């Protein structure tokens, strides 16, 4: 059996369902994408808490303080973590003064977000919290991993 010259069969795969699928997957990844923020240190293992609340998205003026397992404070803009408590104190003082220049005296509304490793000693966390307050910061949060309530 032979085909005539004028009866060519055009085999075209239907790409539209494939495109639909790809676009749906793309949409999923676009929505769930979570680029690693420069201020958040992913190597810090946070403790788990059932009562941890979902993060508020409306807080924009924040200062992240990442405390690693060695008890060092890791901050943005400094290559080496701050080991000495004097350095930490100076850093917080400078941060508060810089923010005061922008916001005005006594009007600093920065939220301090403490991301401490679960092996950090209480003493260091307490001292940093106290130092934050001493410098003038008023809003503080502790970060933890949300655990499903049983």
């Amino acid at each position, binding site marked *: 059996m032979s085909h005539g010259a004028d009866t060519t069969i055009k085999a075209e795969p239907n*790409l*539209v369902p*494939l*495109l639909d699928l*790809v*676009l749906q*997957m*793309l949409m999923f*990844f*676009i929505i*769930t*994408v*979570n*680029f*690693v923020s420069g201020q958040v240190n*992913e190597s810090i293992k*946070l*403790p*788990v*808490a*059932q*009562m*941890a*609340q*979902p*993060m*508020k998205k409306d807080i924009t003026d924040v200062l992240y303080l990442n405390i690693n397992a060695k008890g060092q404070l890791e901050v943005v803009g400094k290559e080496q973590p701050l080991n000495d*408590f004097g350095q930490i104190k100076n850093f917080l003082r400078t941060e508060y003064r810089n923010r005061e220049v922008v916001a005005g005296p*006594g009007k600093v509304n920065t939220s301090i*977000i403490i991301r*401490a*490793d*679960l*092996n*950090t*000693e*209480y*003493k260091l*966390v*307490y*001292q940093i*919290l*106290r*130092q934050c*307050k*001493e410098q*003038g910061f*008023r809003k*503080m*949060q*502790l*970060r*933890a*991993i*949300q655990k499903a309530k049983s």
Partner: protein
Amino acid sequence: MRRRELKAGPGTEVDLPIVPFLDMSFQILFFFIMNYHPSAMEGQMDMSLPAAGEAKAQSIEQVDPNVVPDTEIEIKSELTVVIRTPHDNVNDGAISQISVTGDQGEMTFSSVEALERHLKSVQRDLTNKTDIKIQADSKLKYYFVIQIMDACVKAGYPNVGFAPPPDLGSTP
């Protein structure tokens, strides 16, 4: 105005080029798959601080040596959860004792769950039903501090404050 009539004839076939569109979608999809790092859900635990007062006196005349400085992160509460840690170089940082001090004296608990049950049961007799304070040893690991804080919030005390560690020197 007369409407133009369409003549029946060889119609124009519109071919939407889907292949380049698909190529581009695949590239973007690949980028997102490569950057997809599902991480554990991070949540926040608000800290309770004493009311913000004037941080510094405006002039020398305003300085009152009898006024307690507004730099403490303690809150006024009727109950204090005291957590102790051993200093034996083996279990350093773990909980060795949990107790609650208040007007009714001191009570010791064997577990965090027992503490939570006690805090729930005594809450109705308190005047200040929302505030509680945690006082832990210097060496206690942060993991346990959050565990106790979590238990306090679960027991119905949303305002949790921190007291200085009893073994901390007078100068931080």
